[in-house]
């Protein structure tokens, strides 16, 4: 891990992005084929639908040292599975509000709707999210020291 405080090297946040297979993953593909760049520290996990993302996965990511977690899904109403992202929306609204209630910085979590046609949006969202989290700094509040000390 980079030590942010020493400033030896620029802090590069570790971002986990969960993307639904039908819209957002395809949107990310389109960003790729359109050569719309975003930082390499965004790593995408493909899930069938945003509603597959269990809060446990989000917490797991933070535990393992992610600095930001973003979920991307089809726009509400356009879910490939009809209603999946409606549930995602409720679950994540409540979860993220709750995490913030426990003092976890609200900027570390985000949900964005990105359609298969929105390669540009995907790239813009990722750039913005990386920027926000970079400004926020390392995730220290919701992380497992045992994991990091391993290094």
């Amino acid at each position, binding site marked *: 891990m980079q030590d942010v405080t020493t400033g030896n090297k620029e802090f590069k946040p570790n971002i986990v992005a969960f993307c639904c297979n039908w819209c957002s993953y395809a949107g990310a593909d389109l960003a790729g084929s359109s050569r719309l760049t975003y930082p390499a520290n965004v790593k995408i996990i493909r899930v069938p639908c945003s509603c597959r993302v269990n809060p*446990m996965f989000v917490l797991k990511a933070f535990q393992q040292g992610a600095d930001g977690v973003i979920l991307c899904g089809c726009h509400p109403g356009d879910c490939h599975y009809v209603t999946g992202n409606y549930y995602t929306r409720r679950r994540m609204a*409540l979860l993220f509000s*709750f995490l913030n209630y426990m003092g976890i910085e*609200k900027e570390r979590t985000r949900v964005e709707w990105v359609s298969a046609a929105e390669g540009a949006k995907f790239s813009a969202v990722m750039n913005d999210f990386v920027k926000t989290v970079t400004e926020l700094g390392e995730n220290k509040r*919701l992380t497992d020291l045992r994991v990091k000390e391993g290094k």
Partner: protein
Amino acid sequence: MRDVEQKMIERAAALLQNGEVARVVGWKKGEFYFDPAPAVFETVDELKDFVYNGFCGANLSKYLIKVSKNEGKTAIFMKPCDSYSFNQLVKEHRVDREKIYVIAVECQGKLDIEKIKANGVTAVTNVEENGDKVTVSSLYGETVLDKADVMLGKCLTCKGKTHQAKDEDIILHEMPAPANNRFDEVAKLEAMTEDERFAFWKEQLQKCIRCNACRNVCPACSCLKCVFDNPSSGVAAKANDDRFEEQLFHVIRAFHVSGRCTDCGECSRVCPQNIPLHLLNRKFIKDIDGFYGEYQAGETAEGKTPLTSYKEEDLEVSDVFKGEGK
């Protein structure tokens, strides 16, 4: 309260005697006035130990999951708040309503022996309830306390005195409902800065010894195997080896019961370290009310929960923190 207890014993005896029910779930005398324990009574004879007093705070509804599997009908004494949990259990098919006979009983708010002791009274040998006052006898003398000061936390923010399910009731006195807004404490935390909230929960959760009392007492935690006990879940743990695990356990537990938690307050009551766990669940309830319209779990035994339903015009996740100004 003695008259209520007397009536309860009479009804229990009658129901057992005429074979309407095979057992009665209630509370049993302990070593003191203030330590009755939940119990199942199967014979009239056993009812000699039956007790109902200000220390019967325990929510009995969860016991029905196990007890109602037995042959025959089960009668249960239920306080207003317990009836919400009961409905939720019926809704989730954990308890067969047909096999339960609900006797709604009066509740004037329950007492907390730890709060009594926190008033400097120790070596308590007896407690007497007299209306608004509580007289505590101890080896070191006698003390009179205001009942309002020594009530269980959950009773101070009582949801109301209406039973949500009943087959009959034993209500002999009026039950005044308290005026507290149960979301005040949550709002107070919300008004803090992120840093303050973090510090608050860090200190509170650091006390957690992972005894699982909150989970095991929770009527909404009725999984056959909890994810935290399941080695293949990826989050199983027996203790909090790192601060993260304190957070993980309580976040996931609160999420899992969100939309299902009736705010019965048992989690906070049983916590040996007095962590205000209800404030976690209550945040979800407050948010659900705020985001999706008021919802009280356990008000009915039917319908979908807020997390298993949706509206097309639901609040966007990005709007959750809008207008917060922090």
